[in-house]
């Protein structure tokens, strides 16, 4: 048993550790009152948190309008829109914990006292951050257009309440730290100490992740059920799943091809593609627009049409891009990894070279490829291919709708194959050499060895690499945005256009949620079928 008094990390840690956990003396009356005061402070803060939540809900203008019968809006939506779920639950839980801690403090348990110290430290930090934010927001000129300078008076005025609370908290912390060995009994167990320490260390990460991940994600989910817009202050209406219905409604129709009256066969356009008949007039009237038609042969085609043709085609583009580029990267990456895995002079140099495409910012490599893919002889790819006699004339790599996606895949494969190869290389190096020796003693040739030894042993690495790359490819934004702009969209660029150009927050959020769910589904499928180990 270790019998030392654990000290709080933020105390002066160079002080020698107290040798004995025993109570040094009985508390005086004043000290006993002090502890009652600190315990009271905790209960007060807890109740204050509840009260603050209640008051701010009650004074929310939208909610007031509804409760007073001035608005027909849904009360739940108004609440979710203004407060979300995460923050109210957090306030309730933390308030409850503080009250409980206050009650426990009066029973003089050392564990409660240690937790109380921790709570006071983080409450002070929290109040400090809020104060700084209030300071900044109050002093900042409201409209950036009129540069009136920083308004110091307002800023200082805004920070005063925070400063007062901060002082109270710090005084309480000081008292508690001084009295901790006088008033509180017992010895904190090692497990309890580890637990407290762990949560202490995790609090900053949790706070950051709540602000930048949990809150925004929740906001996206809630907004996706509304018609919220970004500019302006129109009232927000709850539209249920309408956004999703508009995004996801598509239909498949079998259509005949247009007949060429002279030859009595299917008519083609200038590029040689078959021309198809339109889908039913009734469907067009309902808002369905054809996205693309797949040739089924025999003069029949399968037309995919959708209410939001741009979204369905962006989803198609993204899926095609993902599947083709990830497969190519896997095959090429495995190939490169095996070459680099064999020992040769300059192998280190080769590995360094492989980091180059990865390190170049995607935006820059996209602009670079934009130049290499130019549609005349000033584009190096055209020049090379024509010089070598592979192409007879220059291609419009980025303008021709039939090869646009392949050009992007080319860029992506160049950029990420080395990364894939490095991951696979690390996996290859964990395969023991004697397995190959054993296989070759048994008479297996190189090909046989590859399929019997390399692939099975590399499976976990391949799985992880596939997960990483697929999830990355599904949310592809940079290359599409820079190289194709609005000419051809991926789901992410469509989301961006809807949000920034059309200012349609509700609709954009619904797209975001769909991407999220799609990525989630892919991740689950991979984990299930390939058995990725997470631990």
């Amino acid at each position: 048993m270790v019998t030392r008094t654990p000290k709080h990390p933020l105390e002066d840690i160079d002080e020698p550790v107290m040798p004995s956990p025993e109570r040094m003396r009985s508390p005086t009356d004043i000290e006993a009152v002090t502890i009652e005061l600190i315990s009271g402070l905790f209960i007060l803060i807890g109740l204050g948190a509840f009260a603050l939540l209640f008051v701010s809900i009650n004074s929310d203008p939208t909610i007031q309008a509804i409760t007073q019968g001035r608005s027909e809006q849904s009360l739940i939506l108004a609440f979710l829109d203004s407060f979300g779920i995460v923050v109210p639950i957090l306030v309730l839980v933390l308030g409850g914990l503080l009250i409980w801690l206050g009650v426990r403090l009066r029973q003089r348990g050392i564990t409660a006292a240690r937790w109380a110290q921790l709570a006071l430290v983080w409450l002070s930090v929290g109040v400090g951050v809020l104060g700084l934010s209030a300071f900044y927001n109050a002093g900042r000129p409201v409209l950036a257009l009129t540069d009136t300078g920083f308004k110091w008076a307002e800023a200082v005025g805004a920070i005063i309440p925070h400063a007062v609370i901060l002082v109270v908290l710090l005084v309480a912390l000081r008292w508690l730290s001084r009295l901790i060995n006088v008033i509180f009994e017992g010895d904190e167990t090692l497990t309890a100490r580890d637990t407290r320490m762990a949560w202490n260390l995790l609090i900053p990460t949790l706070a950051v992740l709540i602000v930048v991940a949990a809150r925004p994600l929740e906001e996206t989910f809630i907004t996706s059920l509304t018609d919220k817009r970004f500019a302006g202050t129109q009232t927000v209406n709850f539209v249920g799943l309408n956004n999703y219905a508009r995004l996801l409604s598509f239909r498949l129709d079998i259509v005949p091809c247009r007949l060429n009256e002279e030859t009595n066969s299917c008519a083609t356009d200038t590029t040689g593609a078959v021309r198809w008949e339109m889908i039913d007039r009734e469907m067009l009237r309902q808002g369905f627009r054809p996205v693309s038609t797949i040739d089924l042969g025999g003069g029949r085609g399968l037309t995919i049409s959708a209410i939001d043709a741009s979204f369905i085609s962006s989803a198609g583009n993204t899926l095609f891009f993902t599947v083709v580029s990830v497969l190519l990267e896997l095959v090429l990456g495995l190939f490169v990894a095996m070459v680099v895995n064999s020992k040769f002079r300059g192998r280190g140099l080769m590995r360094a070279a492989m980091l180059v495409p990865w390190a170049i910012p995607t935006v820059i490599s996209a602009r670079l490829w934009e130049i290499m893919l130019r549609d005349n002889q000033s584009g190096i790819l055209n020049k090379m291919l024509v010089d070598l006699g592979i192409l007879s004339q220059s291609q419009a790599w980025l303008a021709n709708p039939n090869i646009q996606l392949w050009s992007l895949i080319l860029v992506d494969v160049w950029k990420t194959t080395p990364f894939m190869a490095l991951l696979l290389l690390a996996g290859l190096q964990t395969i023991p050499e004697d397995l190959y020796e054993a296989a070759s003693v048994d008479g297996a040739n190189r090909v046989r060895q590859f399929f019997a030894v390399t692939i099975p042993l590399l499976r976990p690495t391949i799985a992880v690499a596939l997960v990483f790359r697929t999830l990355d490819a599904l949310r592809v934004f940079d290359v599409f945005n820079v190289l194709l702009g609005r000419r051809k969209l991926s789901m992410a660029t469509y989301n961006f256009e809807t949000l920034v150009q059309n200012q349609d927050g509700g609709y954009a959020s619904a797209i975001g949620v769909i991407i999220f769910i799609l990525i989630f589904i892919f991740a689950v499928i991979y984990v299930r079928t390939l058995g990725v180990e997470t631990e």
Partner: protein
Amino acid sequence: MTAKALRHLLGRVGFWLLVIVIAVYTLFPFYWALNSSFKSEQEIMEPASYLPRNPTLINYQGVFQNDEFIRALGNSAIVSATTVLLALVVGSFAAYALGRLRFRGRTAMLYAVLSMTMFPQISVLSGLFAIVRDLGVFGSQLSLIISYPIFTLPFTVWVLTSFFRGLPKEIEQAALVDGATTFQTFRMILLPLTAPALVTTGLLAFIAAWNEYLFALTFTMTNPSARTVPVAIALFSGRIAREEPIAEVMAAAMVVTLPLLALVLIFQNRIVAGLTAGAVKG
């Protein structure tokens, strides 16, 4: 015997051809950027040549006289450095807790962090947009500093956790016997030991923040003076040539990429270790 030697020779030649093909394939686009950055705008429009016919430094001059670009460089440096610092401090705390301490809820936390590494940035774009606006930082560099932990922090925590876990248990026990507190053990013993890991993760986080485009593009839409380098390069307008200043863009790209490449090549072993620590050990 000779047939075997011939086959061996052919094998060697084939192998080296493969190596050369792979090297050219990975490096050629980079060479092309370098090549283009030394050409005049006029030469860029002519049929491509493998070497610049009249090498010129005018593009680099243009880049360094471009105030917008210089400001973007400064913005990128501030945003990336702050992001890295935040991620390392906050992340190493969490990683120590997850890697070295035993407590209830540890596995749940690990899974929560892991799920964050797979988080699609684009899904939170509209939510984050609203939060950044509510905080009153929309259009400033601060909006980027606030939002970048979404991809740097989970990754940092994950990699550092695996590093912390790899350290032998005896270290802490020895420190404990000597009477150090948990925090002392963390600060004075474990942290110096993980310095190499901190350098690696810091570098990876820096590259990720330096290259980020989606948030930077969205949040600085209304305020060009807060743009970071990727946005500036994507929306580059030239000083010398009015329209499509291609050679200048390439010179700017070189200015941005070369320091990054130098860093990557110096620390290549550490970077590969860091990249694969998250993935292969999983």
